[in-house]
């Protein structure tokens, strides 16, 4: 597609339930990122994928959070046993870097519209 897409747009769930959030990156982009934005706050990095592997998971806040990417394209972020503090907007981004030794504008990250998660 023309841009990064995410689904669902909004999700309301009850505390303790599991949720899955989906991200479709820009076609051909090898890198995919998940970020979280809590109400009135800046963005917080969660996880980075290069292809199907995740070399940087340092931002995942707890073991209730996991993510996978299949076919070098779609990614799913799963939150198990949701808590009220998980309420936030979850944003996905993608880019097409050439490699750590070759830096340039292809590293520009493009963001999707986000999934607004509310845990009651």
């Amino acid at each position, binding site marked *: 597609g023309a841009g990064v897409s995410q689904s669902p747009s909004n999700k309301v769930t009850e505390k303790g339930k599991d949720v899955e959030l989906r991200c479709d990156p820009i076609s051909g982009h090898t890198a995919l990122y998940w970020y979280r934005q809590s109400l009135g706050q*800046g963005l917080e990095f969660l996880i980075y994928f290069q292809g199907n592997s995740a070399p940087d998971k340092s931002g995942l806040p707890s073991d209730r959070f996991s993510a996978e990417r299949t076919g070098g394209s779609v990614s799913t972020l799963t939150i198990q046993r949701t808590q009220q503090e998980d309420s936030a907007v979850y944003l996905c981004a993608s880019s097409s870097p050439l490699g750590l030794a070759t830096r340039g504008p292809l590293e520009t990250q493009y963001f999707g519209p986000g999934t607004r998660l509310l845990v009651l």
Partner: protein
Amino acid sequence: GIQVEQSPPDLILQEGANSTLRCNFSDSVNNLQWFHQNPWGQLINLFYIPSGTKQNGRLSATTVATERYSLLYISSSQTTDSGVYFCAVEPRMDSSYKLIFGSGTRLLVRP
């Protein structure tokens, strides 16, 4: 870890006015991006600018990497410029491309 500070935190302008937003960062970076988050929450890319100066219409940006700051200039502001402006950096010492965001400048342009 790297610190990213944006100023001012809030800014109110009359339509047609000019403004300068600042981003200071505490360590060397490989990547610096400016974003505009519109009232619907969409993050829109403005500039990829780890160094140098770029212009796009009424917007321009300058990053002085050696002094660890970046400036975003908005000229002849319009009501549609309202929203939150974020600066985000990729620390040079990091081996991933993750962005560290500042807390943003909230801009309101009044007609």
